[in-house]
């Protein structure tokens, strides 16, 4: 076993046996899982209960229908997205979404409702779902109309308002369980003709979207009434209202477009973030180890047995192994999540992993991750080789991290909003940013020549960086006292041994 591998093994064990390393390693999958659960919990609010007292007898049905149509439209969108993601064609009901979301107008929703609506569509896609696909869950209703106990809804608005305070604090039985009333709407007998306003009472909770829906539907009804007074028949007003502009929106094919781009970019972009997170954590450990060797006066004993370059390469190989462990562990977590779980994790992860369908993309992802890891690790090693305490190291580390992190974060944003931007392309050819830029752009359309060119650039840069770092190691490892100035560091790097 060579000295390099003995040192590498020790470096690996030094980092891999720390609690901090395993906490970082486990924290990422756990954080993803936790955020998924939180998102799911946050996405499942309790339904809002409302009631309509329609003294005119003409508008309540229309308002309820609007709520139902909006619910079915949302359901149609979700079932269509689910069917598209899992490539399910569940028979005739698929016609409801075959033209894409731009065609989900009221006529289309009416036909969808006639076919059984979201409940029927849910049953159909679940009957055809492939192995590993999570069950499609029918979206929860956001609003539910409840009837009030008889006798409460036949008074005047003032009397009605007076009894609401009690109703707002009393549980009312609904199909989804007991709920307190959130919104009460009172439509006067002469709505549309007189000046009496529609009155709405809330229990103080935020029901603005529902109020807006009600307001729009009542305004629409008032306009229909006005047109009726002008001699237009009810059918005619509905026909005019539903008039659809003939147009065709061409959506990208399944998996294409911005949504597809985001889904396909999840793994590479996650690797960019993880590379940063990993570097912050293991880089800190590396720096601490290096400073321990310097401050503990260990280096002289080591350098009596191995050369500075063997020590440096040992550390780099050890670090590379740590990086590989991280990537393999997270990959194993992702695969385990996809193959064992049927939750929202797999809904996102499966299509994003399926974007990595070509071996060269996987190889490039691993290459850029490891090369990025090595490039930044060597910067940490360089800082560690000139500092004798963490405090000294912080002075160097802070500006270096700012220079690395800020452009990388800008790059991630740009890579999704504008993958072909000049900024992303230029960053791909600045070696310190190349791994990040190429990871971010890898599935958004880079050419093979770009991959080959940047890979050669990165390898060349790593080679140069290791030579310069080797010189710094040789010149400075046993120095004590104040850390050298930037000028003397540059001089040390320029000097051959």
């Amino acid at each position, binding site marked *: *076993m060579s*000295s390099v591998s*003995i*040192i590498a093994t*020790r470096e690996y064990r*030094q980092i891999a046996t720390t609690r901090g390393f395993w906490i970082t390693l486990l924290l990422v999958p756990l954080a993803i899982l936790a955020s998924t659960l939180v998102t799911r919990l946050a996405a499942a609010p309790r339904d809002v209960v409302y009631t309509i007292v329609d003294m005119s007898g003409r508008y309540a049905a229309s308002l309820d229908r609007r709520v139902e149509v909006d619910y079915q439209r949302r359901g149609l969108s979700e079932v269509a997205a689910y069917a598209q993601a899992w490539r399910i064609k569940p028979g005739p009901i698929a016609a409801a979404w075959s033209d894409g979301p731009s065609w989900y107008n009221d006529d289309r929703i009416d036909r969808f409702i006639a076919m059984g609506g979201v409940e029927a569509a849910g049953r159909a896609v679940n009957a055809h779902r492939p192995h590993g696909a999570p069950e499609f869950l029918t979206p929860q209703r956001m609003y539910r109309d409840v009837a009030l106990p008889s006798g409460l809804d036949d008074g005047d608005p003032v009397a009605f308002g007076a009894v609401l305070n009690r109703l707002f604090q009393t549980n009312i039985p609904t199909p989804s369980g007991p709920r307190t009333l959130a919104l009460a709407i009172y439509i006067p007998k002469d709505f549309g003709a007189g000046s009496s306003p529609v009155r709405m009472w809330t229990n103080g909770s935020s029901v603005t979207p529902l109020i807006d829906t009600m307001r729009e539907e009542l305004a629409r009804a008032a306009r229909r009434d006005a047109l009726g007074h002008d001699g237009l028949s009810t059918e005619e007003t509905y026909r005019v209202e539903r008039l659809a502009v003939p147009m065709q929106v061409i959506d990208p094919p399944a998996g294409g477009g911005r949504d597809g781009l985001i889904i396909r970019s999840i793994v590479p972009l996650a690797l960019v973030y993880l590379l940063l997170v990993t570097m912050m954590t293991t880089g800190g450990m590396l720096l601490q180890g290096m400073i*321990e*060797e310097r*401050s*503990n*006066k*260990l280096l*002289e*004993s*080591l*350098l*009596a*047995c*191995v*050369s500075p370059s*063997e020590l440096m390469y040992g550390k780099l190989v050890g670090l590379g192994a740590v990086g590989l462990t991280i990537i393999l562990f997270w990959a194993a977590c992702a695969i385990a999540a996809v193959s064992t779980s049927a939750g929202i994790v797999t809904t996102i992860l499966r299509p994003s992993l399926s974007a990595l369908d070509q071996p060269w993309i996987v190889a490039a992802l691993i290459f850029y991750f490891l090369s990025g890891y090595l490039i930044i690790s060597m910067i940490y090693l360089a800082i560690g080789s000139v500092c004798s305490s963490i405090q000294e190291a912080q002075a160097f580390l802070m500006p270096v991290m700012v220079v690395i992190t800020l452009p990388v974060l800008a790059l991630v944003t740009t890579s999704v909003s504008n993958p072909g931007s000049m900024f992303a392309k230029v960053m791909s050819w600045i070696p310190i940013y190349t791994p990040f830029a190429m990871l971010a752009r890898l599935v958004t359309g880079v050419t093979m020549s770009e991959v080959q060119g940047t890979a050669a650039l990165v390898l060349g840069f790593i080679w140069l960086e290791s030579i310069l770092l080797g010189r710094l190691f040789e010149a400075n490892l*046993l120095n004590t006292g104040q850390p050298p100035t930037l000028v003397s560091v540059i001089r040390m790097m320029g000097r051959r*041994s």
Partner: protein
Amino acid sequence: MAVLMLDRVVKRFGEFTAVDELSFSVPEGGVFGFLGGNGAGKTTSLRMVLDILRPTTGTIEVLGKPPSRENSTQLGFLPEERGLYRRMTVLDTVVYFGRLKGMKRDAARKSAMALIERFDLVPWARQAVDKLSKGMSQKVQLAAALVNAPRLVILDEPFSGLDPLNQDILEDVVRELARNGSTVVFSTHIMQHAERLCDRMLFLARGRKVFEGGQEDARRAVPARLTMVSRVSPIGLPGVSRVSLAESLADGWNLWDVGLAPDVVPGDILEICTAQSFPLRDFTVHSPSLHDVFLRLVGPGNGR
């Protein structure tokens, strides 16, 4: 055969010359003292021997070869400033250094355990180093230096920071190594250790060699101090260069501190006193200690 040979070695750091035209050789076996004050160039010279530093000019041979890490399989080195990986266990630390010196895992482990026993560290063998006292940590470091049963052991200020008990243990180890055929080179500025251990020694002052040889040679390099009790001042005796009255005694007798001219030994003065019937009540030769030799050779005005 010389296990270590330096020939006109110079080491400069910019304008500063740390080691200047240093030449000496260390024969195989025995204990060689590398003596000098702080900043004399001892550590720089030893680092060149270990190939941690390269000489500006001159040649070095270690075990018949130029300095390189290949020699580390037969070298043991204990640096002046010592440190260990705090979270590594005692056993792992010693095995790690054994492996870096080219030992197989099993051999390194066996040798490490033997040294851990030798230094009474068995109860702490699987403890992390940061749980040990300073004295125990230094034993671990010594074990790491000796794990490969080295032919040449280089100890840079090995006694610094050790309590008297551990100093005695280390002296025993040095003697044991020499008895078992290893050559020990150690640097120090504490002459008592050198006096007890060294067969041969070299004095270094400001980067230059000022003496190389055995202990008796070293003592001879410094004029002996003579005291005489007589009524008359011995200043007129041939070979006496300086006389000072140290103490007035009873009945007119005086204690004189006598300095001798170069190349004059105390026996010559005694012979002259006898021949001239010079009355004496006491004639004492004070042989110089290594401490005196050190002060004389390495003190201000010596070396560069």
